[in-house]
């Protein structure tokens, strides 16, 4: 399992097509992990690009951390990871909160990023939308329980359920993640956001609560284009291939 040690944490990553001249670095959202890209979206991009996926700290197989989930720290760690991997410049893609990390990185280190793609990132001011992650997490748990409701045999340990539950407990109760996300509520009002110079692709679900945030970003970022795909906030799972080919076209031209 490839793991890179950073100053304050350890990061699990996966690479595809290493050696290709251009690199796409992909950032997942809160309460998920790199697998959201790994199976469908990344292999399509790897037909042409070097693709690097990593688990944010506290997620997937990266190290646990009780603090530092704000955009400043998360974008610091993104840059530190790039330095460790010897990546001078990358195309950067982020989903949900990972898209906010990507935007923050573009604002702070514009020279290190070529093109930018943002998928379903919410406006942090709308805390209701930010809570989608929580609601979605609960749905996952409910779905899991229902899925097994018909089984008469007791499943040994319900290991998967326990794993997920443990992650939510760690992140939501034992870390500063909620406060760190809340402190970002004025992020869309930041003047630097409107100054992002990069060519930017915004991909949103046409039935998503976050779609208005996509429109706001489209208005603020001068060199942006907004495309809609069928689905809600969960479009990387619902429509991976339209997203993969949109990204491939965008980064490849």
């Amino acid at each position, binding site marked *: 399992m490839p793991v890179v040690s950073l100053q304050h944490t350890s990061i699990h990553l996966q690479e595809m097509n290493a050696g290709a001249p251009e690199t796409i670095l992909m950032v997942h959202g809160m309460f998920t992990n*790199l*697998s959201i890209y790994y199976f*469908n979206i990344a292999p399509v991009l790897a037909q042409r690009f070097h693709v690097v996926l990593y688990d944010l700290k506290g997620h*997937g197989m990266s190290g646990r951390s009780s603090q530092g989930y704000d955009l400043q720290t998360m974008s610091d760690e993104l840059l530190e990871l790039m330095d460790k991997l010897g990546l001078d410049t990358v195309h950067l893609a982020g989903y949900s909160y990972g898209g906010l990390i990507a935007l923050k990185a573009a604002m702070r280190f514009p020279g290190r990023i070529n093109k930018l793609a943002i998928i379903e990132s919410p406006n942090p001011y709308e805390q209701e939308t930010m809570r989608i992650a929580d609601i979605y997490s609960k749905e996952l748990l409910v779905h899991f329980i229902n899925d097994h409701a018909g089984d008469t045999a007791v499943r040994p340990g*319900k*290991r998967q359920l326990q794993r997920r539950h443990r992650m939510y407990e760690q992140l939501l109760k034992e870390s500063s993640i909620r406060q760190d996300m809340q402190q970002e509520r004025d992020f869309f009002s930041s003047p630097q956001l409107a100054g992002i110079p990069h060519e930017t692709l915004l991909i949103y679900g046409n039935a998503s609560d976050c779609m208005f945030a996509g429109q706001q970003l489209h208005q603020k970022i001068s060199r942006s284009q907004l495309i809609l795909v069928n689905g809600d906030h969960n479009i990387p799972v619902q429509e991976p291939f339209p997203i993969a080919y949109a990204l491939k076209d965008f980064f490849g031209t």
Partner: protein
Amino acid sequence: MDQLTQPTQLSEEAILEVLKQFITEVIGQEFVEDLDITPQSSFTKDLEMDSIEIVAFSEKVKAHFGKDIDFTGWLSNMDLDEIINLNLGDITKYIQSCL
């Protein structure tokens, strides 16, 4: 003397044994002891593996069987539902077809 397969070609049983070892490494010996791992075992329903564990499993398959197996490429043609419903027999057959 009646060997029909080439000496280098692994049987489905041998491949399955390797895959079982990978599953043990990914989810841990203590959980595997409670499971009956067969070719019909699916990742999520039977083995209770989640998607990041399937990533770790895929990585081991690629590292072990080499670059002749485009395991990720094979998976990438499936949607996530198909991937989580895959069973070990499907994977064994795919690997054998590549060797």
